[in-house]
């Protein structure tokens, strides 16, 4: 395998695709816009101050919803995990809820809470809280029984087991779930802004669609992709830093 040849083939593919797009799009007959127009539309996110407030609204709603949803999911998981009976009762009910495309709840939340930032945060929280919940419940349930027995043989009481086994397991599961949760928080915010809002990145996507301007919409979508990519990378870094002790074992 020749790495240099592959790199050249990749660069060629990108150049040919962009060039074709530019040529066909510049014709203006197909409403596919052009890469240059998209680049211009993206630069507006840097230069136009009203776009900054769009961005900050989206991030606020996503951040609030993320915090709310993660706290709710963690709290619920801890409650369910304290009793074996409770976790048996709750697991299938929550499994059914998990099968529901929760993102479909957006219109219901708009009806209930309006179109403000708090309404979006509630919706985001409802859309995501099952992710950390599920991760924590499964993480704790899959603790190696041999580990628990070993700890018990070594004389650990309830408090020791909590501190040395359960809390690290919950923390690890929570941390793993955060990447997925963050991506969905952003997506849910964008969707609810598309459906009803007067500002925000999702609102700009809708504007682009209404104006038949794919460049505006695509620029906003690429911005979302960039944001979720950087959030994901930083969470992955935090995760690998804090989880380093695991590999040592």
């Amino acid at each position, binding site marked *: 395998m020749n790495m240099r040849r592959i790199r050249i083939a990749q660069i060629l593919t990108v150049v040919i695709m962009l060039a074709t797009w530019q040529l066909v799009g510049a014709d203006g007959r197909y409403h596919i816009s052009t890469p240059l127009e998209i680049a211009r539309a993206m630069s507006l996110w840097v230069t136009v101050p009203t776009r900054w407030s769009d961005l900050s609204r989206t991030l606020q709603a996503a951040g609030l919803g993320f915090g709310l949803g993660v706290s709710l999911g963690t709290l619920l998981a801890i409650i369910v995990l304290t009793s074996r009976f409770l976790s048996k009762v709750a697991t299938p009910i929550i499994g059914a809820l998990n*099968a529901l495309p929760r993102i479909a709840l957006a219109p219901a939340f708009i009806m209930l809470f309006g179109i403000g930032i708090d309404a979006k945060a509630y919706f985001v929280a409802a859309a995501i809280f099952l992710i950390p919940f599920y991760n924590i419940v499964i993480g704790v349930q899959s603790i190696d029984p041999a580990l628990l027995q070993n700890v018990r043989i070594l004389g650990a009481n309830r408090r020791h087991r909590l501190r040395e086994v359960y809390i690290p397991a919950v923390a690890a599961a929570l941390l793993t779930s955060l990447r997925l949760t963050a991506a969905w928080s952003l997506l849910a915010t964008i969707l609810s802004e598309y459906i009803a809002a007067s500002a925000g990145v999702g609102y700009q996507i809708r504007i682009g669609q209404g104006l038949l301007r794919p460049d505006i919409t695509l620029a906003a979508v690429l911005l979302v992709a960039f944001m979720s990519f950087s959030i994901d990378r930083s969470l992955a870094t935090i995760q690998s830093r804090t989880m380093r002790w695991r590999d040592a074992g």
Partner: protein
Amino acid sequence: MTVRQGVAVPLTQAGLIALGLGTWELAAQSGWIDARNFSSPSLIYTAILFLYSEGDLLFHVQATLKVLGLGFGSAVIVGMTMGILLGISASFRAYVEPFLVFVNALPRSILVPVFIIWFGFGMAPKVLAVFLVAVFFITINVSTGVRTLEGEFVVNARMLGADWRNLATNVYIPGVALWLLGSARVAFGYAFQAAIVAEFFGAFLGLGYVIVRAQGAFSVHQIYGALVVTLMIAFTLDRIAAAVESRSTRWMGARA
């Protein structure tokens, strides 16, 4: 587990659900919560009956299932082909990888507005969205599957005298089918979600449209009614996928 415990769990579940629904209904009837905002189980039931008897509920369900079937079906075909190619050829994998990473980072379900501008309001943008959401799960899972087969299994089969035809029928096809089924349930859940979301973005058909239409008409009961129908369909599909998955992977348990 004793018999009593075996009954206690489902009984508590049914009791909890009945209690929840009953409280909701009573609270709405007595005016303690505003039924115009929070609806009530009986109002939702009436709304579902209305949507059904009006004649268009089944029609919209069919539309959603059609989008889901077309998108997911093509995702399975393309994902399997791509996955096998990626698993077999290391240089193809190296070539495709950065593109996969890029497209995978794109929030694909919110690309629907762009697809609508490009392809109009027909089925195409929705099918494309479902396809794009499902195809990556399948591609990545199948290629991982092929790569795990590459080692021990293939070497052992070769040593036992298998030619490429034996390898294909006895190693690759069962192996790939297994990994496909393993990813199908998760991919299907996301695909269903993508279908509903795609119908939010300016559509005239499907369950997602029924939900948005109800919102536009400020009809709370119909929103909840459509959501309940969506939940029931999602739950049924998920149960079917889970049954297929556990039946086809049962033999694996024997190995450990």
